[in-house]
């Protein structure tokens, strides 16, 4: 091989070495997923070997040269049953095992910290509860369960972190969620895997897993000064949600304190859990989600708040455990004029109350 230039050799060697054949395992679910993966590889190999062995062996043993006269055979129920039942059994094992992992990946533990991800053509916007905003990047601490709540502003996207073996579609109009617990600090690929138009292949970024100390430092250094809930509070006040949703006994909207996670009875008698999905619906399409005992007078905010804004409002409502903060918004905020055309006739008196 001496005639190949050494430079080229080195280049080739380096190039080949930089070709990974297996992705890093950087989350708690990754080894579990890989176990199933290798099980499947194993049964595939067994099956393939069997098929190849049979074909090759028979081809050699019964080639025309060696075996000029074929022996006619009808079939064999016993054999056929064997190769029906064994693959079926193996496939069923794969099914059960797969389903266990599937439910694990899509059922976040209750103590997981929640990060919102909004996908749009062609970027990922990440909103941390502490008010840190990121684009095409996601910083997470090692060793903590992190839940992602995903939504898309336009078309389908898909949030994929191969090193964690998790992936979830961000779909327009609805929250989806996925969770993981990173185990190894480092920087990993983040892809949008659902085809979403021209810039699909540019919708990539990094997931940075940090030790908790570094993570805290990062949190502190990249905050905008306001937490997501505080942003939400500001939005809440500026949209004058508090004109109706306040703690007064005669309020025209339901009291939002402690509403998150509670069971609500709706106008039409159904009960729902007030989770993020419900709250989002209630903000964007309020008339369909009016709580029992309240008139469906809330205007829709469809098209007026971005998905990011909705996320902030939800985060705000989630953190409302006492009426105090709510009252504060009434007292401290100078409300912008209400958009008359959009608002269903406000009851007299509401406006005057608000002014300090």
């Amino acid at each position: 091989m001496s005639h190949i230039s050494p430079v080229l050799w080195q280049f080739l060697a380096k190039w080949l070495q930089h070709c990974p054949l297996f992705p890093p395992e950087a989350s708690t679910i990754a080894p579990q997923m890989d176990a199933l993966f290798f099980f499947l590889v194993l049964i595939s190999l067994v099956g393939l070997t069997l098929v190849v062995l049979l074909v090759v062996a028979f081809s050699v043993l019964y080639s025309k040269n060696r075996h000029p006269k074929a022996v006619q055979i009808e079939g064999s129920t016993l054999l056929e049953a064997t190769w029906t039942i064994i693959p079926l059994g193996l496939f069923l094992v794969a099914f059960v095992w797969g389903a266990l992992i599937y439910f694990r990946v899509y059922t976040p533990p209750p103590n997981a910290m929640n990060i919102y991800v909004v996908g749009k053509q062609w970027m990922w916007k990440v909103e941390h509860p502490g008010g840190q905003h990121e684009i095409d990047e996601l910083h997470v601490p090692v060793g903590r369960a992190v839940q992602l709540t995903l939504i898309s502003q336009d078309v389908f996207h898909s949030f994929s972190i191969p090193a964690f073996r998790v992936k979830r579609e961000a779909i327009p109009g609805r929250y989806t969620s996925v969770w993981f617990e990173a185990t190894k600090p480092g920087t990993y690929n983040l892809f949008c895997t659902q085809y979403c138009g021209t810039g699909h292949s540019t919708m990539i970024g990094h997931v940075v897993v940090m030790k908790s100390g570094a993570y805290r430092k990062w949190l502190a250094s990249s905050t905008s000064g306001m937490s997501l809930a505080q942003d939400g509070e500001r939005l809440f006040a500026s949209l004058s949600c508090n004109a109706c949703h306040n703690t007064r006994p005669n309020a025209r909207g339901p009291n939002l304190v402690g509403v998150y996670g509670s069971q609500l009875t709706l106008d039409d008698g159904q009960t729902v859990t007030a989770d993020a999905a419900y709250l989002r619906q209630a903000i964007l399409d309020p008339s369909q989600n009016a709580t029992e005992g309240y008139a469906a007078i809330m205007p829709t905010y469809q098209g007026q708040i971005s998905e990011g804004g909705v996320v902030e409002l939800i985060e705000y409502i989630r953190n409302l455990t006492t009426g105090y903060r709510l009252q504060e918004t009434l007292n401290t905020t100078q409300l912008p004029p209400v958009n008359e055309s959009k608002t269903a006739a406000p009851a007299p008196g509401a406006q005057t109350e608000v002014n300090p």
Partner: protein
Amino acid sequence: MSQHAEPHSREAELHIVSPKVYVAVALSLLALTAATCAISYIDLGVFNAVVALAIAVIKASLVVLFFMHMKYSSRLIKLTAFAGLFVFLTLISMTMADYISRAWGRW
């Protein structure tokens, strides 16, 4: 020469349905139309939809059985129609199964 493997149902020797049957069927169809229309003005809760669909199914069956001669047709034709119905119901029911168990929206 035209001995076939299985004796095909010889539909060329058509079962000719008598006009009386047609008249009876047409009249019942009209009556059922009137009935379904009238019933829709009565409040039966969820059963409004059920009754309306049930009547539609009865009407459709009448058409299929008599106007379309299904009643006098070969097993093959019956099986064919059944297969169509079956796949149609598969489409609807399995799609619905997803929506119902997803609890998205108001089910």
